[in-house]
């Protein structure tokens, strides 16, 4: 089964990447953008998706500084 893990900086921690993007966008004419955050996307295939949370806790994310969210393929959102 295909699984996606979305990892983002915890709220309250300066997200330097997000801020840099947010500052760069208006210069390109995109001036209605707010609250930009940059994180990581991990995609993988696994037989037993129940273990993905454990992977996140142990390796894929650092719970001190990052939140994660697991999205299974079936439940995946619409694409534009």
């Amino acid at each position: 089964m295909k699984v996606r893990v979305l990892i983002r900086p915890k709220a309250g921690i300066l997200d330097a990447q997000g801020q840099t993007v947010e500052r760069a966008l208006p210069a390109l004419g995109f001036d209605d953008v707010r609250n930009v955050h940059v994180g990581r996307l991990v995609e993988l295939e696994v037989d037993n998706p129940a273990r993905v949370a454990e992977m996140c806790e142990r390796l894929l994310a650092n719970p001190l500084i990052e939140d994660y969210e697991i999205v299974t393929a079936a439940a995946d959102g619409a694409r534009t």
Partner: protein
Amino acid sequence: MNFGVIRFPGSCDETDALLAARRVGDARLLWHTDRDLTGIDAIIIPGGFSYGDYLRVGAIARFSPVMAEVERFAGHGGLVLGICNGFQVLCEAGLLPGALLPNTSLRFTCRQVELEVTKSRSRWTSACEPSELLSIPAKHQAGRYWAPDPVLDEIEEGGQVALRYVPGNNFNGSSRDIAGVCNRAGNVMGLMPHPEHAVDELTGSADGLKLFESALAMALA
């Protein structure tokens, strides 16, 4: 005294650390799969890009077989120093508090920095005077020390902040100018600047030797 310097795939500064340690004692390289630390008095986890720094700095190296031994060694009071990537590994492993985030500039920066030695429990700065200034190069892309405020309060009060950037030198945006921290027992320390690159005036400074001399003094004590 015998230093062991760990080499992971992707380490870069292991030879430099080895040469620096040999200024005060004997030193040998340890392989990331080694499980035998017999005869080692102090361990150095060197700088570099273990496992390419992929996923997150230090994240993969902390699971290598040798790190399980390092945790045991540290638990028994053994001296452990993590430099740059080594600091990141120790934080990931939970041996040191906090985490290292990307520099606020997002750029890799290589610069000589001034550090102030803080009065702390760290065995690795025991040969320094309190408030002594050290000139040591720093070079990294993810060296912004961060921990939640209560943790920062706690480590400050508990004498776990070993080194701070002198004002104007904190290029990575570290909380409270923290450049190096130790564990509560003081035997495990991590820092972003590279003392192993400051052991010879000819290449810029010899101030970093103090850390190695501190370890030697502890081992002899």
